[in-house]
């Protein structure tokens, strides 16, 4: 049961007049869900960027944004000061001149930012936000997710190539090499929980964890591999080589400005949420929480499961932020060595452990 069905049920229970039946049609529901998801992404990203700035500020012994917020709060709290900073940044980016450098491959250059955001948007389709709260519960959810996330590689390559700049090209090339190399350990890390749940559907994996235990046991190695590979997939430090600002200016986003740049930024933070959400779903039990079944009212149960999911996801996000502001950047050859020679064997090891675990638990 997806979000659309839930909204339909809501209308039914509210007693919608028959004249308004078109509201329940598929096309309207599609639009409603799309607006919901995009709204969720936008709000999340606005919040995440602000959070990232505040967390980095606390790590670096400074205040972070303190001015763009509610004046009364700015003076009161170090954490709540400047809560509108990202909104202000977004407005700035929107009203900025949208430069198109000469000699760019126009079509590719324009398509890249849209594609990178679309790829990230498509990932949200299968994420189980709560008990029965996913756009659609595909029976190949995990495979779909991995497939969609590799579209982003194409978009970044397009940005690198279309910009007609050497720095962008180098960034694009690095990104392709990096994302393809790290996708493989990522897939193998995800196979552990899939094996244990016996299903590729995200909701089924969560339900399997609700029935037994969080799949971080015995997949702890897989979890660590996934977090590392996920950091690389989202191009965050210490794997931010595609946009490594100290050597490649800004990598594939060098030639982008205004809203197109904002699209890349949006996609980056939305991917951060996706990676954390997937880690939560497959390793930390998703929305499952002991005592959730005791809540009788289905509406409240859904809400609580949603909150549980958010809390777990934000724990992972904070972990990723902590990593980001601590480590230096890897070099491109070291990145490849690490991906293929360290991460992949560990991912295999994890798969082996998960398989033995499943075999033993079935025997017993």
């Amino acid at each position, binding site marked *: 049961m997806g979000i659309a069905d839930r909204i339909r049920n809501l209308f039914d229970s509210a007693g919608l007049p028959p004249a308004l039946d078109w509201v329940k049609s598929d096309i309207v529901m599609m639009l409603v869900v799309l607006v919901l998801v995009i709204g969720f992404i936008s709000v999340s990203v606005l919040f995440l960027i602000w959070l990232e700035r505040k967390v980095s500020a606390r790590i670096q012994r400074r205040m972070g944004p303190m001015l763009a917020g509610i004046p009364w709060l700015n003076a009161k709290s170090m954490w709540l000061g400047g809560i509108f900073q990202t909104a202000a940044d977004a407005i700035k980016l929107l009203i900025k001149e949208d430069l198109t450098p000469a000699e760019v491959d126009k079509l590719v250059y324009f398509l890249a930012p849209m594609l990178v955001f679309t790829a990230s948007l498509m990932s949200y389709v299968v994420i189980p936000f709560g008990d029965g709260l996913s756009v659609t519960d595909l029976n190949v959810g995990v495979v779909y997710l991995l497939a969609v996330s590799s579209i982003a590689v194409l978009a970044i390559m397009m940005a690198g190539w279309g910009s007609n700049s050497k720095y962008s090209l180098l960034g694009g090339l690095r990104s392709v090499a990096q994302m393809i190399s790290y996708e493989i350990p990522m897939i193998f890390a995800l196979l552990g929980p899939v094996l244990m749940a016996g299903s590729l559907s995200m909701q089924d994996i969560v339900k399997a964890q609700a029935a037994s235990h969080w799949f971080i046991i015995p997949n702890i190695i897989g979890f660590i591999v996934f977090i590392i590979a996920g950091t690389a997939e989202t191009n965050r430090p210490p794997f931010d080589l595609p946009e490594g600002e100290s*050597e490649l200016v800004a990598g594939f986003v060098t030639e982008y400005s205004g809203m197109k740049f904002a699209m890349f930024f949006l996609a980056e933070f939305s991917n951060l949420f996706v990676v954390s959400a997937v880690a939560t779903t497959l390793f930390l039990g998703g929305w499952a929480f002991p005592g959730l079944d005791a809540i009788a009212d289905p509406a409240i149960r859904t809400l609580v499961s949603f909150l549980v999911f958010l809390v777990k996801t934000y724990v992972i996000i904070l972990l990723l932020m902590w990593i980001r*502001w601590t480590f230096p*950047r890897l070099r491109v050859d070291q990145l490849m060595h690490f991906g293929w020679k360290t991460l992949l064997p560990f991912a295999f090891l994890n798969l082996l452990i998960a398989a033995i675990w499943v075999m033993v638990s079935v025997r017993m």
Partner: protein
Amino acid sequence: MTLKTEEFYINMGPQHPSMHGVLRLLVKLDGEYIVDCEPVIGYLHRSIEKMAEGKHFGQFIPVTDRLDYVTSMSANYVFVLAVERLADIVPTPRGDYIRVLMVELNRIASHLLWFGTNTLELGATTPFLYAFQEREKILDMFEATCGQRLTYNYLRLGGVAYDLPKTVSFAWTDGVMPFEKACEKFLNEMIPVLDMCEELVSENAIFLKRTRGVGVLPRDLAVDAGCSGPVIRACGVKYDVRKAVPYSIYSELDFDIPTRENGDSWDRYKIRMDEIRESTKICHQVLAKMPKGAFKQVLPNRIWVPPGEVYSRIENSRGDMGTYLVADGSEKSYRCKFRTPSFSNLCVMPYLLKGALVADLIAIGASLDFVLPEIDR
């Protein structure tokens, strides 16, 4: 089918965001690997040496600030030292001690700045801010002493421009404190922060991978190219002007010259961190021994020096810095030539970069710690 590949050029700088100053590097790349690299300098040429011929000695001191804006005190010092030797001026004892204190504090500030930017080039943002927060305290003390935070114009012939302030009050002092106490407080509190920074960076696997065995400078090449300072000491050459040709009060002070053997980026990093510690030792001794009395000899504004020539050299934070001064009996120099360490240290860059990766370009450059205005002059 074989794909046709070709090498391509990229122009790193002068407007590259993380290039140190306005250096232009013409880099020939084979994919990610550097085939060849040619540094192009001169974008910041202000003909400082020629300006020396048009200003009398006192007027020229503020210009030397612009030689090396990261350690202006040293740049002041090397010029003042040359003129004093030529004109037979002996600085007052207190003036001499204040000079050494300021130069060493400036060395700490310079190395902290280097530590911050070096880790920034390697992609870590956080240590940069830790280092700058400490450097800020030194700048506070300089501001209280000479009114400036970057280009100090503090040294004078025969001493320094102003005496140390009696009391200071900064955000990090316990209210109003005597200057010496505040300085001691800073030195004592900086070492734990430095330890913390080193803990964060030195044992970090990624940092070690990015620096150990990267940019290895052979000892012979370093000597031939005339490298100096931490760059040559990282190759195992125990050469420091403060010990080799002691000037001022350095022969009375107890400090070590840290050296290392491998000559890679890691060693250059370690040397600078050790030097900060040695400099704090010097500062402690200078503060303890600080004599009372006049901070400056009473001299006329304009000084006519006897004809002759002199070469003065000091150890600034980047290495052996010298001034060759020729006087013709007037109040201006006939010729003033600066020997700057960054120029020689930059010379070895093409050698270090051959076969390295693009990512190492900025990292190796940062580990050499050159300052462009000093090279272009």
